[in-house]
């Protein structure tokens, strides 16, 4: 397993999406999110995008008001995860057109579907935006 969790958090520290690939209880999750968000939000733009927390690394990237955080194993390629975050954002952008925080909030399930196409059990499955979006577009067309 490489990716442990994917989190979207806004500037106020509110979770906008959370997907865990390992089991954590509700309390553990809340605590974890709180700690990580505090750590990441305190960092400046000049500092590197990696934070070590407990037994894993958090790779994060900020796009406007949203922080995208990905928790990974210690031996994961951090730069590749940064690239993955960017791919995710680009994919959402292609789908929603100028994606913003509200899009993610109100279309939570769609973002989950995209993420599901991209990551499974913590492994990256698909990196082509077209392939990722195909099932979602198909579903929208059919309905």
């Amino acid at each position, binding site marked *: *397993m490489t990716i442990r969790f994917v989190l979207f958090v806004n500037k106020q520290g509110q979770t906008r999406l959370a997907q865990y690939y390992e089991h954590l209880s509700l309390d553990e999750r809340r605590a974890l999110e709180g700690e990580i968000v505090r750590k990441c939000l305190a960092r400046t733009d000049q*500092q590197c995008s990696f934070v070590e927390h407990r037994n894993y690394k958090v790779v994060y990237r900020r796009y406007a008001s949203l922080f995208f955080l990905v928790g990974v194993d210690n031996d994961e390629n951090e*730069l590749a995860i940064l690239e993955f975050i960017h791919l995710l954002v680009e994919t959402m952008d292609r789908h929603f*057109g100028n994606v913003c925080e509200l899009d993610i909030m*109100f279309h939570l399930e769609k973002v989950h*579907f995209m993420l599901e196409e991209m990551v499974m059990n913590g492994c990256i499955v698909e*990196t082509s935006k077209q392939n990722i979006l195909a099932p979602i577009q198909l579903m929208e067309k059919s*309905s």
Partner: protein
Amino acid sequence: RRKGHSHFPPSAPFPVFQIRQGPVRPPPSARLPHCFPLQQPAFRSRELPVPNFPRGGVPPPRYQAGMDTVEKIVEDFASDLAMSAFSSGMRLRDMIRAIRSCKTAAEERAVVRRECAAIRAAISENDQGLRHRNMAKLMFVHMLGYPTHFGQMECLKLIADAGFPEKRVGYLGLMLLLDERQEVLMLVTNSLKQDLNHSNQFIVGLALCALGNICSAEMARDLAPEVERLMRSRDVNTKKKAALCSIRIVRKVPDLAENFMALATSLLKEKHHGVLISAIQLCTELCKASKDALEYLRKNCIEGLVRILRDVSNSSYAPEYDVSGISDPFLHIRVLKLMRVLGHGDADCSEYMNDILAQVATKTESNKNAGNAILYECAQTIMGIEATSGLRVLAINILGRFLSNRDNNIRYVALNMLMRAITVDAQAVQRHRATILECVKDADASIRKRALELVFLLVNDTNAKPLTKELVDYLRVADPDFKGDLTAKICSILEKFSQDKLWYLDQMFKVLSQAGSHVKDDVWHALIVVLSNASELQGYSVRSLYTALQVYGEQGSLVRVAVWCIGEYGEMLVNNVGMLEGEETITVTESDAVDAVEVALNRYSADMTTRAMCLVALLKLSSRFPSTSERIKLIVGQNKDNIVLELQQRSIEFSSIIQRHQSIRSSLLERMPVLDEASYLVKRAAITQATISADKLAPPVNPGGLKLPNGVPKPTAAPLADLLDLGSDGAPATTVTSTTATAPNDFLQDLLGIGGANSSVAGVSSSANTDILMDLLSIGTSPSQNGLPAQDTKPVPVVPEVIDLLGSLSSSTSASDVKPTPVVPQAMDLLDGLSSSTSISGLENTALPSITAFQSATLKVTFDFKKQPGNPRESTIHATFTNLTSSPFTDFIFQAAVPKFIQLRLDPASGNTVPASGNGSVTQGLNITNNQHGQKPLAMRIRLSYKVNGEDRLEQGQISNFPSGL
């Protein structure tokens, strides 16, 4: 006179209060209408513009902070109504909007509670139309961190539904809300199996995805054949998902690995990147799962891997997989990872990869993040396999380039990589030492941390001194947050390379001066041990510390070490004993030394350890410098009214030593014997364990929650133990060292003999001359606490005043000469939990200790026990009731209740009036038969009713502190 059979359940088990709870129903107001009247909104067409991000860069900060405008919200709203995946999606929006508009956490909780109530209601009404909308809501609520277990069954229902949208939401809910540990999951196996065999590839995809995310070992076994079959499917999407799904299966059931080996290898021939990346990850997992698979893949897939890597790195522009001019970096990275696994420890495989790795390492562009990610992975692979030296040079060059990069991300990964490289090529890493040291001083905490760890690995005999110097110098300006980590690392480097004592001491003093407050206790304890052994450096040390103390008085650990040294080696400070070459002479008078300690004492008024150390240092100085004796007496005397009992007591003791015991003072206050380094190290290692076990041994808290005093005057034991420590300081059998050697206690406590009664007792080793005193002390602690059976308590002398002990010590040097003195009544008052009957009955081997069964402001009940010889089940309790108030109790009735397995018979009480102020008492006998003797302990509830001045009173309580064995 009444026979005290109780009114309340005589032999029933203790009543358990049950909280009745009806089904949760939301109040009517919370149940909102399910549907709003809908107007058919206009469709909003939405084209999908291709994002116009600069390649590889951050997308422009497009979505402005805050929300775009009201317009956008309205638009979204309209489009959502049109969206039919959630046919009545409006309510979901409403909920999200309501939650968004909440100002406080309490408001949010209220909204969520109301919504959850509505969803529960919908679930119980089995409203099918609302199911997937409710599920979507639950997902949102779950994301916010609220419990959503009640929706789990709904997921299963949705999955069983025929429609694709329902299934889709159901599976998503399954993955989000459930985990493999829940039993509900077993129910889904059948649905999954059906869906895996579905004709629609999208439904198959959903099922595979869900299975890949959450399957348990049992499900893996059940469904593995289906997944295997799907890996042979013609559809690429199904294939890639099946491949990833098998990763989970293999991880759950490693035995199944061999079923997938051949399949995984065959998938490597595909063209579709999604299939390739999945297959490669599956191969990586198989290598981890079984040795056979690793061998198989080494033979069969290395060729395919090299081909994939060559194809992808040479491929022309492919828009779908292109990331800033590089074709599919993700695939690159996965291939390189697998190559690392296969090439590790296998020269043939490594040989085979050589060329392509060299190509990737040289040709990949390094001006973009994607390229650097590949280079990073490539360098790691080269380090991980049995690469040729030429290839190694390439990797090291990449490292060097990374390390000098300005981008912090790149520097971070470079440091990370160096950590790994150090095992392969330590020389190459040493070359970058200067750069790494610079990184330790970086502004970025993540980089500093990495660099510091790296430096720690780099330290060896030759570079320890310059590296440490750099680090210690940096300590002065380091970020306060970082000082803790840095100090810890410096200290462990210092201890590792502490052969050169003078260097070690010098550096330690510097660290203490710069970051004394961050130095851990065990570190400065170790320093004191070293100091006490280095007799030729003690003079130098005490002078350095004294000088440092004048400047850095705010550093806690420095103050402690300095004060200890001044106390021990004060005369070396004043007389400049043991000057080292090149050391500057300083002039310190006797009263200067006392000043220094006094300043520390006043400065650390809240820190008990430092204060205690100061007091001891002062006491020692009073003997070293007789001229300051009067002044020290005054300073020590100021603590006589300290609120900390320990300090107060010590202050009184020390004053009387200074004042009244001149004859023994000098021998009492001699320098501490040399501490044994080896045994300290052993002890230090044991500390963590000891702390853990001590926690476990801690006496259990009264389960009833009712606090029953056991009448244990704990503090009385402490001074005795302390004085013992002090007294034996000069004695030939040095208790201090023996405690250091044996007891897993806090070093400081040993050093000074400070500490609570229990630890002191445990800390004293059982050398012959301390035995009696130990016994003496164990009277002070209740048998249940120190775990000593009562019969171990010998009738030993109880000394009414601590100073008497000292007196006897002074008259006879060895403690074992202390004659058993008769029990002194005053002392018994101190130990009021042990009434005189205990000591007497303590002579008989079979007796159990008495307890204070119950005590309130007005009334005290003590129990004495007697066992029938030959019948362990039966015991007789002799209860004594004492009135603590000034008015007599009339109509006194005592009642008791016991659990079912115990039989209780109450004897008539000796009277029904309890005289005031403890002038006499009422007694009553209780005969107890414990039918589960040895299995269950005795427990009892009591009720006491009586009249005071004609007014009815009632008191009750639970007794759970019965001695064991009843």
